[in-house]
């Protein structure tokens, strides 16, 4: 166990070192991401200057939703997205076969050898906005809300990682999986907005088949004591359970996909 942990830490440090070889490009990329997400936030601000409320949510509340989503996504995706997006190429080129022969868990090797520190830009933008929004949105703080905030953020992070893992793992069955990421990001952009503004069908999909509602809309609505469509009084429990439950499903799906893998490259 200690040996495995040591290996994983070594993989992470080697990857970070390789990224930092191009330090200028690395920070330029982060700056570009901060500007890009900042533009989205600015767009929301402009909209709220004109219209005051969006689905009953004011500017600080929407800023809280935006920053919570960005932080949860960054934390979850750093340990999943680029690694599992590239799994399709590993399957297609046959490179995955070489990884399967390594004396280490394949998932752990994939994730830790590519732990994406590039999400630093997301986090650098999300944390100050989150702190400001938590102060400005008049959250009714108590021991429960404080614990709920921390636990729901971890759960949201797990939801992100689990959904991305399930999408990426399908490459081992169908060889291709990247088109599914197009659908994922279509829904992901919706998680910047309150769930109640969308038609009932999209709400239902975002709480079940594509459960991205738990990344931000559900936990932040609970924090702000706002009604959550379809879940009602169980929203807080669903927000906390979504992460662990989806993680278990993702583990089962990964194992199933591994068992179905037959190799596609030559």
């Amino acid at each position, binding site marked *: 166990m200690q040996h495995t942990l040591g290996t994983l830490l070594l993989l992470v440090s080697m990857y970070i070192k390789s990224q930092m070889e191009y330090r200028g490009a690395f920070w330029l990329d982060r700056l*570009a991401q901060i500007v890009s997400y900042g*533009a*989205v936030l*600015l*767009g929301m601000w402009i909209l709220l200057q004109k219209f005051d409320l*969006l689905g009953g949510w004011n500017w600080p509340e929407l800023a809280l939703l935006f920053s919570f989503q960005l932080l949860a996504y960054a934390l979850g995706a750093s340990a999943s997205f680029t690694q599992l997006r590239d799994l399709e190429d590993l399957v297609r080129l046959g490179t995955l076969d070489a990884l399967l022969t390594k004396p280490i868990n394949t998932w752990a090797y994939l994730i830790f050898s590519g732990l994406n520190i590039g999400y630093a830009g997301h986090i650098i933008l999300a944390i100050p906005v989150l702190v400001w929004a938590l102060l400005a949105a008049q959250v009714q703080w108590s021991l429960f809300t404080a614990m709920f905030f921390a636990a729901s953020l971890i759960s949201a992070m797990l939801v992100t990682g689990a959904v991305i893992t399930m999408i990426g793992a399908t490459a081992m069955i169908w060889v291709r999986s990247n088109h599914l990421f197009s*659908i994922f990001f279509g829904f992901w952009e919706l998680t910047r907005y309150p769930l109640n503004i*969308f038609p009932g069908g*999209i709400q239902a999909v975002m709480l079940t088949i594509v459960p991205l509602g738990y990344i931000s809309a559900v936990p932040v609505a609970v924090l702000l004591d706002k009604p959550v469509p379809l879940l009602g009084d169980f929203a807080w429990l669903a927000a906390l359970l979504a992460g662990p439950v989806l993680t278990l499903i993702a583990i089962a799906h990964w194992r199933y996909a591994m068992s179905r893998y037959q190799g596609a490259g030559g």
Partner: protein
Amino acid sequence: MSAYTAFVRSGFLTSLAYRSEVWANIFGKLVQVFARVAIWLAVYAGVTAVDGISIGDMITYALLGGVVMGATRYDRIIRHVGTALKTGDVAVWLLKPVHYPLYLLSIEAGASAYTFLLAVVPTIVIVALVYGMHPPASLFHGVMFAAYCGLSFIIHFLCAAIFGVLAFWLMTIFSLEWLLQSLISLLSGLLIPFWFFPEPFGSIASHQPLAWLVYYPSAVWLGRLDIGQTLLYFGFGIAWAGLLTLALTLLWRRAASRITVHGG
């Protein structure tokens, strides 16, 4: 010329080969257009008109944004240059009797035509059937909308190609792609039309080239510009396209000479 026609065809047929991605894109776009309409319905919250703009106008505006921005993909153009730069293919293009930026334009025209016909049109028809969509303000505005769409494609391509060619100096396309994304999301009018921007930002935003991507085509369809203004701003758009073409030509010449210096 026949070579570029063949590239257009090639772009179209290449898209045909990746059908699953196109269908996934249709679904992704459908969700995004539904979302944009939902956002406008939510902010209007039952109010019939704000600053003389009705909720029906805004639903139409959101759908038109999908029409003019749904097919062309700036990221595809930038990544094309990035890949050519990374693999060294760009040096091979310099040897061929074709102009690389024109080749890019042809490939993108073919791919955009495919996405427009098979992804954008069905998406917009579905959402329009659900929410309703205003027809063009007049026949003149309808015809000019089509002309503005053509201009939108050209300016979209030129901006993406300029950002792509900048990779010759930066040697990375990642930041360029993200920067253009931020500019387009805010300054094309895709998310919020400039008439809702606080002044003087609205006036400034409506005179920069990205405004011709979504804002002007949609404003023309809705009849927000009279006949004189429609023609005048079309002229301004052509002037911007001319300036951007000049910028791309100069940048490409310098980039090509850099490759000559460092290649071999």
